[in-house]
């Protein structure tokens, strides 16, 4: 697929989101969450390109969400909270990344999982500070000085998420086509070759890891601003699993995949939860199985193969 048609598709998607959010008001919330998760999944996509699965990126999601929740007490300005949360996620990502990029495959996945679970239990156990499993309600937040609440607040956060999604999507698209992206793919196929070429696989993976942490940070901040309530569940390993799930559901072939996947995931979840109150996980599990068995390229794979055939 050419760069131009992908750009057009992304812009068309953005317009579609705005139209849907206008026509069906309750979809605004769902779409904002979907965009946020898509952002986090973009980072997962980078790591997947290197053949590595992180079962712990919920850590950065929760870290950023709690940063917003705590930071809002001091500085209740969304435009400052958002970058601050992402920056903190990036710094923590760099520190953890220095450690985890030495490991591959199962160990990489498990170390990430372990660290996110450590964070989860810290959030849950230090009740005095975090209110444990009850979580924290976000204090009122402003956007450019005006209160971020009500319908205009919802639109503002949706707009923020959309802008971030387009910007990060474009950046990842460029990064994947750059030597860095090729090197990432090299880690998956034959890491030793990169060494021979004088490229440090660890450094390449670290760059991707920090980028993925920052994007998960943006996602966490948006989620905190949307739900206005943060709980330790954001850091639980099933949330990380969900992100990997969305990556596969959407398809790892394009930067549009994560957003398609996230939208499909959130919509399925809303409908499944409404229709089968106690079995929405079961429905999602079946959907995931179906995708893996019958459409390994994900939703994006289905679309692009049809286009190629036509």
């Amino acid at each position, binding site marked *: 697929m050419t760069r131009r048609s992908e750009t057009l598709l992304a812009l068309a998607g953005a317009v579609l989101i705005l139209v849907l959010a206008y026509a069906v008001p309750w979809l605004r919330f769902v779409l904002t969450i979907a965009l946020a998760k898509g952002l986090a999944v973009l980072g997962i996509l980078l790591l997947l390109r290197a053949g590595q699965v992180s079962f712990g990126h919920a850590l950065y999601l929760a870290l950023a969400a709690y940063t917003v929740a705590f930071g809002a007490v001091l500085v209740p300005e969304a435009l400052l909270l958002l970058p601050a949360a992402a920056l903190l996620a990036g710094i923590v990502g760099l520190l953890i990344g220095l450690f985890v990029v030495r490991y591959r495959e199962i*160990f990489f996945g498990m170390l990430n999982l372990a660290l996110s679970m450590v964070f989860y239990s810290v959030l849950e156990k230090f009740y005095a500070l975090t209110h444990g499993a009850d979580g924290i309600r976000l204090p009122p937040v402003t956007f450019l000085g005006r209160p971020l609440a009500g319908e205009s607040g919802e639109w503002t956060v949706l707009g923020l998420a959309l802008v971030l999604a387009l910007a990060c999507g474009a950046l990842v698209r460029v990064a994947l086509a750059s030597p860095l992206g090729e090197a990432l793919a090299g880690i998956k196929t034959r890491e030793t070759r990169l060494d021979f070429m004088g490229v440090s696989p660890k450094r390449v993976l670290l760059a991707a890891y920090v980028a993925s942490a920052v994007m998960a940070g943006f996602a966490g901040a948006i989620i905190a601003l949307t739900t206005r309530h943060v709980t330790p569940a954001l850091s639980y390993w099933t949330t990380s699993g969900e992100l990997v799930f969305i990556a596969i559901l959407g398809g790892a072939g394009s930067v549009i995949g994560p957003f398609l996947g996230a939208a499909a995931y959130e919509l399925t979840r809303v409908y499944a939860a409404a229709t089968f109150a106690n079995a929405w996980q079961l429905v999602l599990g079946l959907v995931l199985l179906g995708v893996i068995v019958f459409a390994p390229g994900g939703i994006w794979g289905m679309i692009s193969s049809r286009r190629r055939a036509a």
Partner: protein
Amino acid sequence: MAWLSENGILVGLALLDGLSYAAAVFMVAVGLNLVFGVLRVLNVAHGSLYAIGGYTAASIGLFAASLGAPPWLGLPILLAASVLVGVVLGPLIERLLLRRMQDREPVLQLLVTFALFMILEDLQKLVWGVQPVVFDAPLKWLGTVDVPFGTDVIPFTAYQLYVLPGVALATLAILAYVLRYTLTGRMVVAVTVDREAARAMGIDAAKVTMLTFTVGAALAALGGALAAPTVSLVPGVGASTIVLSFAVVATAGLGQIEGAAVAALLIGLGRSFAVYVAPEFEVVVPYAIMVAVLLFRPQGLFGVAETRRI
């Protein structure tokens, strides 16, 4: 030393608790490790098998008790229930799902087990509900034992003192014997080391895989069944068990049976000491141990570093 004499009972309790806890964790982790060795898939749904084993044992036990069965029957029921779960679910999952995925990307294989986890988790809620299930007949029937510890005497349940560690030790001995000295065991080891070569030697790898998976599933179920009398079963018990046994397996090194026992002991004791000394860190300790081990031995305590493919 003054601290020790004052808190002697605590240390003793932590030791005993840790031992029985390590025994249950070992059962799950060793099954996970066996399955990983042969299938090269980290089975996320392994924790669900643990939960289902516990629930099945509790249901059968409670049903038998309602028919007026003598309390000693509780113990064989635990064993029978886990064999039942292993023999029914093991081959089903392996044949219908995992075998089809054998030649696919490792990421996809991992996600298949994640999907399975989601499905089983909800099925379990549909069957057993969300109310805690308690089946402590075996625990009560065996009564308590006074364990002398220094100058103190600690009353501890005989079930946790003898049955749990006893079954774990027996499992360890049987597995070690079977894998080293029987033909079937050697075939399992052969498939673990090199699937292709094993097939070339005339080993029916598909059959070995199915057998191993069934045994692994039964071990997870047995772990759950054994733990059932000591805890009340609630939704989510599978999810927390699986991350703990991941930690054990990663600490031990992949494919290590005796190593899993040592790691389970290390992590079980570490966790129970945390419960008595610093309860906030209870959940953190297993991962702290794992990270500390992996920092110095990236392949785990007993793992053998794989030579890099060039």
